[in-house]
């Protein structure tokens, strides 16, 4: 065991002396900041209440059936209806910017309502106003369905009540947490490719072989160094998130999963590096291989990112725990298989 630790320590020391691992941390900070900014930005485009409290969308309503839609609009705090006698005056008022949108409501055949909506073109408000138009007409559709319920054989399910919810809640757990836990793993795998390809490329493997290290010691040590990095970073992220007010359920099981997947990915990197030796090809095949392996897990019922999301949000099922076990097992089997191959063949000439 000592020999492996020596190799692992040597790998980590070389990373530390180059200091570029700071870049890896920087990337993760950047990704976290960027995706959060993006989420805030996108949500604020869709949801007026989330950023500017008390923003009221004003609709100009016109047309023969405008009396039917007005109560629907007035029922909501964030909406206000302004009635116009003619469509032209409503349109002019819209062009002057006095209202945010125009809704013309006419009655068609069989009592169906036809809503022609005008939304502002190509500015920041567009998305927001269109989203609000959608909400208005959906509410209008519900009341209309209720009015015409005698003509329906199936009745729509009643909508449950609403509660003020954070729009970022599911984003945090389903995107941010998996992203932050899996990004370090890929970087670790890539570095594992480098660590082995470099020995071949610089011819320093000869030096290692005259030491009392066996081939498995060398591979073990390198994988150990890279395999520790990813769970350590993921753990730091989880701690940071909970410190920041995002409660993470099941942190231990998440770390077990991350460590397991990390072993698998690092093994894959080492395998490609041992098989191809040339960094160019090994890196290319490794990144493509990880891409394939990771998209393939999406076809499984519990993909690793989904399992992390469920564990973090606190809704794991028995299948989730089984999946975690299965991923760890598969990774360990791959690792043991690689060791046996290395023990049998050595590291080659």
């Amino acid at each position, binding site marked *: 065991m000592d020999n492996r630790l020596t190799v692992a320590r040597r790998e980590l020391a070389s990373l530390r002396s*180059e*200091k570029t691992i700071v*870049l890896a941390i920087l990337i993760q900070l950047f990704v976290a900041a960027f995706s959060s900014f993006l989420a805030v930005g996108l949500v604020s485009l869709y949801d007026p209440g989330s950023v500017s409290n008390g923003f009221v969308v004003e609709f100009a309503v016109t047309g023969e059936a405008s009396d039917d839609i007005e109560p629907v609009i007035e029922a909501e705090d964030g909406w206000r209806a302004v009635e116009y006698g003619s469509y032209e005056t409503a349109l002019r008022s819209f062009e002057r910017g006095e209202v945010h949108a125009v809704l013309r409501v006419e009655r068609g055949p069989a009592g169906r309502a036809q809503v022609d909506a005008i939304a502002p073109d190509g500015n920041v408000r567009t998305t927001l106003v269109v989203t609000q138009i959608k909400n208005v007409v959906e509410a209008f559709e519900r009341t209309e369905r209720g009015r015409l319920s005698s003509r*329906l054989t199936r009745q729509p399910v009643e909508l449950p009540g609403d509660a003020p919810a954070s729009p970022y809640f599911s984003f945090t757990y389903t995107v941010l947490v998996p992203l932050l836990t899996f990004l370090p793993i890929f970087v670790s795998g890539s570095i594992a490719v480098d660590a082995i390809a470099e020995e071949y*490329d610089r011819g320093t493997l000869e030096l290692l072989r005259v030491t009392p290290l066996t081939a498995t010691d060398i591979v073990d040590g390198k994988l150990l160094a890279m395999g520790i990095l990813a769970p350590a970073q993921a753990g730091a992220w989880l701690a940071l998130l909970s410190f920041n007010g995002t409660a993470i359920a099941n942190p231990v099981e998440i770390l077990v999963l991350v460590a397991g997947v990390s072993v698998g990915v690092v093994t894959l990197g080492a395998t490609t590096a041992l098989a191809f030796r040339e960094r160019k090809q090994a890196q290319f*095949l490794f990144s493509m291989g990880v891409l394939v392996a990771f998209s393939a897990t999406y076809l499984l019922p519990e993909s690793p990112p989904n399992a992390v999301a469920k564990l973090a949000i606190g809704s794991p099922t028995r299948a989730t725990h089984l999946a975690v076990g299965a991923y760890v097992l598969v990774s360990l089997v791959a690792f043991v298989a690689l060791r046996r191959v290395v023990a049998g063949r050595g590291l080659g000439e």
Partner: protein
Amino acid sequence: MKLRKVLRIARWEVSKNAGQLDRRTVAIGLVVLLAVGALTPLVAQQGVTLDDGIYRVGVPEDSSYHDPVAQDAKFVAVEPDPAAFPGEMELLVRPDGRVVAAETPKGRAALSDFRDTVTAYNDRLMTAESDEAAAFPVYVSVAYAEQNSPTASAAGSGAVRTTAEGKQRLDGETGDGNGADSGDGGTDSSGEESEGGDEPIGAPSVGGSGSLFGGSASGGTPADVAPPFPFESLVLAFAFVLPMNFVIQAYASTILDERVNQRGELLLVSPVSREDIIAGKTLPYFAGMVAIASVTAVGITTLTPAADGVGPLGIASTAAISVAAVIPIALLFLASSFVGGMFARSFKELTFVTVTLSVFLTAYAFVPAIFTNVHPVAAISPLTLVVEALQGTGAGAGPGVGVSLGDYAFSTLPLYLSAGVLFALGAGVYREEDMFTQRSVPLKFLDALDGQISGRRSAAKLSALSIPFVFVAELLVVALLFALPVSLSMPVLLVAIAFVEEIAKSVHVYAGFAHERFERTLRSAAVLGGFSGLGFFLGEKATAVAQLVGLPDLELGQAAFGTVTGLGIEASPLVLAGLLFAPLALHTITATVTAAGATRNRNWYFGTLVVATLVHAGYNLTVVSYIG
């Protein structure tokens, strides 16, 4: 540079790579590529769902809510045991049919999502009804019209000029005869609300797919109303950037290979210039990127449903625009990974550097493009041109629609310039004494800068050359911050911009002092600061042309670029003249401060950098608050 020599080195590069490819590598590579090809449609069909089973709902089998829960993968149905609520579930359907949520953020989020699920379920339920007018009693068509009034700003948005207007202005100026702004395609139905009414109203399609873009005037049920969010075309555009990440891995490897064990020595002593070597080594990878981009472009344009009915000519022109927009991104990818390959000490370090480059460049290209048709900030990214070109075919208009020369110049010129400067920087250290030595990346960077210095006037040259990077960095900051409320983002932006500019003006001066190029006296610091400030000022004025194009319309853009040029600000000629020359004084003074710090040591340099940044930010704040 001699073309024949460049081509020969390019041929060597290709044959060297081909020689390394044995049958096994090719076979495995093919298997992996086939797997990618086979998996992509499978995964795309299934949809990348990250939120499967995140909320648990206690719902009885006979409840009307059972089917909505069972049909949405986001929810898991569990036994409605009141004793287990709220520990084992977030939502509980009571026997009386009421839905209660756990009093936690998770419970509230679950309830909010459950409303959407029930709405979608109701729409699906209604499609089975025979009385269509009662099942879908509301039909909606959404059209878009210009809203141009100062009163709109009363609501707090500020009069933001739209992209369409900017385009119109541009087309008038450049006069490239592309027929006004038909390029906006579907969204540009100003005033013609009847267009929406004339849309054939098909059977209600739940989920609202079908058309590539939700932005056009559309008719349908309320569920079909979709905000203009060109998500699909963005995914398509991403197909251009993703392969580049793989190519630069190989390219950076080949550059670093030359530096390992002095392998590059032979080429260096051969009778070719280093420009020939670099161009020859880059050419195959650049050609590869363009080839991949061309195949992707033709593939996407042919397969896009919106391109139906457009002749081969339309496909060719759209593909050509896409490739032309992607080329500067490819060049910047290559240039920065070339510099990365020249600076890195080991493969591991190179991986960190290339991953960082990939993330930053992809973010720079990708994120602003999300706001195509929504926000002028989108014009920053060349990918927006790709998205617009793809939309242009959707409108069925003639070839070359949607992208004017000015747009192209605005979003690609900073990238072209940055790529050129980076290549020059890397080429400066492509020599024996730098290639085969092991120094840390920051020190190599200083070496590279020092390689460009040949006298005090070089300070002005390097400051001017840094402008593209300053531009790119500032655009990145704008893209990062524009989503936040202006009150919060403005101060952060002003400080960030001041910091970026101060670094650009001083880092080469520091490099010069660190290499003992200049006397460590205050006098030489003053001279260098003066030159550096002047060079930066001139470079900034040169980019004023680019700023005319569109970004000053954006409030943040005005803060970023308007303050230093006086552009986009309406004031008296005297104030404008003052604004024109005040920046010169500012740049000279702050550059002298940092140069004085650079004469001492690193800590002094960083200290004066902070001081200069604060002075600069204070100046910017004054200008923004008094004139803007």
